[in-house]
């Protein structure tokens, strides 16, 4: 491990430091790259409170999306009364379009195990659980192999590093429920129940798994812990922005040339990520927007591309860090349709416990469907906005509170697209099926002028016995030409 951050490199890897460099199935590879050294140092030289303090001083914040200071979370659990405490890793990467945790689990499973033992020591927990999606079979297999190897070498089990500290962990499988990314839901699911959220307080650090003090951290957060211990909190402090330290992994996908995972220091701009690292938009298409934060986030337009990324700046421009999904969209993407896509997701994933999310997301989805079908009214736009705000304010958990974000942010930046759908019955991006424009098939048109005569806006050009053409921008999609044509030459959307 070199402690220098090279200036010329666009990316800097902390969480992904070993990915692609070591054999995930061979513990000696991990050890060769300083694996388990941080754990040895912690167990033989430090007190639990010192470890939590060190992580707090580093400035590390939760990488699952919330951005809560990790060291502080650890301190809460450590200070909570009780002998029996738990540490849970949230590996239920549910954001559709994010896969950085999967990459760490498959490529460097030991870094998670090592960090979890450190976290267990720092929070006073002797038992850990990795809650992982059943949709990641390879990650599950590799984690299980890694756990067996770590047990065999004594990194898990009794009296680790001869320190007297015991810690063991096991896997719990999810079964496909996005709401389980919410820590209280996740705990319910780990207990084998329906993953419905519970109210906070009490926070998991006081009463979590089986009613005991529990810490829940995300995979990427854990992956940053061993380097912090080895290089010191000052090193980590020195990377990033004022409020957000270290690096963040993003899953870059959508209309982008270099689809993949990128790990950049906090403060890198979106433009650098999309155009320098990501190689820009394929096929010479025009950049339209980038979506971060998944179903809880929002869209970011060209105007904000030079924003240095951190937790606060993204919130200020109406999106959020989220777990790291970054979807780039070109101008063939309809923003109303994208909002509908996310609402379809959240209304389907809503657990149904609180009315505001259960009913609110459904009604929002219905309005969006109406709009994309060309049946929206002015009142729908008003209702949609009101509904979005009330769901945001009244939902029980993070899923519901953030579900309206994609709607609010697209309505804010792309109001004209909503209005186009409602007033002009038009989808300029050309993706809302019901609103696609009418055209004439030149193969079939014989130039009889029947359509031209019935067109109420006179937007069909053509002379007798010549192929006719519809001027799309004036067409109101009344269907009259379609009915008038006897040769099936008018193509209806």
């Amino acid at each position: 491990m070199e402690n220098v951050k090279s200036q010329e490199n666009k990316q800097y890897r902390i969480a992904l430091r070993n990915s692609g460099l070591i054999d995930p199935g061979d513990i000696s590879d991990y050890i060769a790259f300083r694996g388990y050294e941080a754990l040895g140092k912690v167990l033989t030289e430090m007190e639990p409170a010192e470890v939590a303090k060190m992580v707090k001083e580093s400035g590390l914040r939760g990488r699952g999306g919330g951005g809560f200071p990790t060291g502080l979370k650890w301190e809460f659990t450590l200070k909570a009364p009780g002998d029996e405490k738990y540490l849970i890793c949230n590996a239920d990467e549910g954001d559709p379009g994010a896969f950085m945790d999967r990459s760490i689990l498959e490529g460097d499973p030991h870094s998670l195990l090592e960090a979890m033992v450190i976290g267990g020591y720092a929070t006073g927990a002797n038992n850990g659980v990795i809650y992982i999606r059943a949709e990641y079979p390879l990650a599950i297999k590799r984690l299980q192999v890694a756990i067996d190897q770590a047990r065999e070498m004594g990194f898990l089990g009794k009296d680790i590093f001869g320190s007297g500290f015991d810690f063991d962990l096991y896997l719990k499988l999810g079964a496909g429920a996005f709401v389980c990314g919410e820590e209280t839901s996740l705990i319910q699911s780990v207990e084998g129940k329906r993953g419905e959220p519970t109210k906070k307080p009490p926070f998991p650090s006081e009463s979590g798994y089986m009613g005991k003090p529990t810490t829940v951290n995300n995979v990427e957060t854990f992956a940053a812990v061993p380097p912090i211990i080895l290089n010191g909190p000052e090193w980590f402090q020195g990377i990033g922005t004022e409020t957000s330290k270290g690096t963040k992994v993003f899953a870059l996908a959508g209309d982008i040339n270099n689809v993949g995972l990128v790990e950049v220091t906090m403060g890198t701009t979106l433009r650098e990520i999309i155009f320098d690292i990501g190689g820009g938009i394929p096929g010479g298409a025009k950049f339209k927007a980038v979506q971060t934060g998944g179903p809880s986030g929002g869209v970011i337009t060209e105007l904000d591309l030079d924003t240095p990324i951190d937790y606060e700046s993204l919130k200020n421009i109406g999106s959020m860090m989220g777990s790291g999904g970054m979807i780039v969209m070109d101008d063939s993407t309809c923003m109303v349709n994208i909002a509908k896509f996310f609402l379809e997701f959240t209304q389907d994933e809503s657990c149904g416990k609180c009315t505001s999310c259960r009913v609110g997301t459904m009604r929002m989805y219905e309005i969006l469907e109406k709009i994309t079908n060309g049946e929206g009214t002015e009142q729908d736009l008003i209702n949609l906005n009101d509904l979005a705000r009330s769901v945001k304010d009244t939902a029980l958990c993070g899923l519901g509170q953030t579900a309206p974000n994609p709607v609010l942010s697209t309505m804010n930046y792309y109001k004209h697209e909503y209005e186009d759908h409602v007033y002009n019955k038009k989808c300029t991006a050309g993706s809302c099926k019901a609103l696609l424009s009418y055209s004439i098939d030149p193969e079939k048109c014989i130039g009889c002028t029947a359509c031209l005569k019935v067109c109420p806006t006179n937007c069909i050009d053509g002379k007798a016995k010549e192929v006719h053409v519809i001027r799309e921008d004036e067409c109101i999609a009344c269907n009259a030409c379609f009915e008038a044509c006897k040769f099936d030459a008018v193509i209806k959307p």
Partner: protein
Amino acid sequence: MTIRSLDDLAKIREENKHKVGLRESGQGKEGAAEILVGMTTCGIATGAKETLEALTEEIKAQSLENVRVVPVGCIGYCFSEPTVQVNVSGEKPVFYSKVDEEKAKEIVQKHIMNKEILKDSVLETDYGKA
């Protein structure tokens, strides 16, 4: 064996230290070489398993003794999977993109055996690490 102290750990690390030099900067025993194949879900979906098998077979067919094929995680360059990293002692590590079975054989014959880099397939990487 069970690790009971930092010294125990240091011993194992020492035994495996040669891997670090070779993979990070190409320093290793004279004649040693390693081919790392990215084997995560997306790599495997694009044919990394077949690539790995082709590499292993070709190495066997050419009776090369000091060349190891190692399955690793991914470097995150999904657009160029399957990706392969070639580490030959005394040379800077080289990344290749979209390595199918055909290209795998070529890598063994040209790069490993003749130190001739397949220029058209080289993948430029741009990251530093902790």
